[in-house]
């Protein structure tokens, strides 16, 4: 059994920019690998979420039924849940549809602006929730890391603090937008 901490990352309704910023930690990823194993992530092949992750980074807003079910499950199997980036923290760009009805949003995307076979998909694509909401409107969040995306240095700071058993202090480290 490895004594290393278990780190997971989850990708909900976001552009993957926060994961890119995570990778921008660059060679310090090796330092992180000394402290924790990446046990679940869009960046690795493992398909099942572990029984209990120590730290999970969540990118993206909760926008669809699939996002909703996934985050509920992840919360139940995570000790420290981190809202990573403005979509997870504020719903950001995915939330810009919130002032319109879901039917109108789908009609704009799949009917009005489509020339060939306009149709609203009913399979494979998960149904949208009425509004796209921040993660903490669905489950309890332990640490908030705003930013679009949060700088790599900030992500590294947050992870090393959490893995050392400390709570990171975010003042001056990032902000909405960035």
């Amino acid at each position, binding site marked *: 059994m490895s004594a290393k901490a278990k780190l997971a990352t989850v990708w909900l309704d976001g552009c993957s920019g926060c994961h890119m910023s995570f990778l921008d930690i660059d060679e310090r990823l090796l330092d992180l690998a000394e402290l924790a194993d990446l046990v679940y992530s869009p960046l690795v092949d493992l398909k099942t979420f572990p029984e209990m992750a120590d730290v999970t980074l969540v990118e993206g807003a909760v926008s669809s039924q699939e996002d909703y079910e996934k985050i509920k499950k992840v919360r139940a199997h995570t000790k420290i849940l981190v*809202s990573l980036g*403005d979509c997870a*923290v*504020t*719903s*950001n*760009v995915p*939330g*810009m549809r*919130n*002032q*319109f009805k879901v039917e109108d949003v789908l009609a704009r995307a799949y009917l009005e602006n489509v020339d060939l076979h306009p149709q609203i998909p009913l399979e494979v694509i998960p149904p949208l929730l009425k*509004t796209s*909401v*921040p993660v*903490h*409107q669905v489950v309890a*969040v332990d640490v*908030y*890391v*705003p930013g*679009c995306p949060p700088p790599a240095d900030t992500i590294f700071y947050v992870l090393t603090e959490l893995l050392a058993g400390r709570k990171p*202090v*975010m*003042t*001056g480290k*990032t*902000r*909405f*937008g*960035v």
Partner: protein
Amino acid sequence: MKRSSQSRIKTLKIDGIDVAAREHETILKLAQENGIFIPTLCHIEGLSEYGGCRLCLIEVKGSSKLLPACMTYAEEGMEVTTNSKRLRQYRYTVLDMLFSERNHVCSVCVSNGHCELQYLAARTGMTHVEVPYLNPNVPVDASHPYFIMDHNRCILCQRCVRVCDEIEWASTKGVMGRGVDSRIIHDLNDAWGDSLTCTSCGKCVNVCPTGALVQKGKSAGEMEKRRDWLPYLRLMHEE
């Protein structure tokens, strides 16, 4: 100096520090002169005080009510607190409600990086908005040839209304409605481009603390405001 004018100096304490104020000096101005930070949004040097944003609330010993520093005058023997747990909580709640009341999407906003609301959130250590977002469906008025009024980003600080009235003397801008339904309007709720009183001076755009009033043609993060002219114009009006 004459004795009579000497007696007009008020001595008081802000956060335990002894300070001296001139007559008719606000606590906000006095704090700024003494390097004590009090957050503000509706206040801007050169315009009248409005006291609407409630971010500059302070505690004054002997008063059970919180008072806006921008509208509270220094008095002899006052003991003022500008930064307590209670005040921080109130300010956090004010910012919370400002962010949730309209659609502030910092990442794609033309004022990203130059916004006073965004700056204050970062400065006060705000990491998220606690209350649910209202997601109001509010319009963008792009009818003016040079400027845009984006109600999504408006915090109703009324700087634009005051500068239009007090400095430009056009009184094009006003406020319609009440509470969360309040909207900045032009003339009698006309499209900005149709306004007969607007002089297109752009002062409202430059005093706006957020991305609610912007120049056309600016992309995300490109809108920087200039304010250095305002105190000079105020001075000219007074002369």
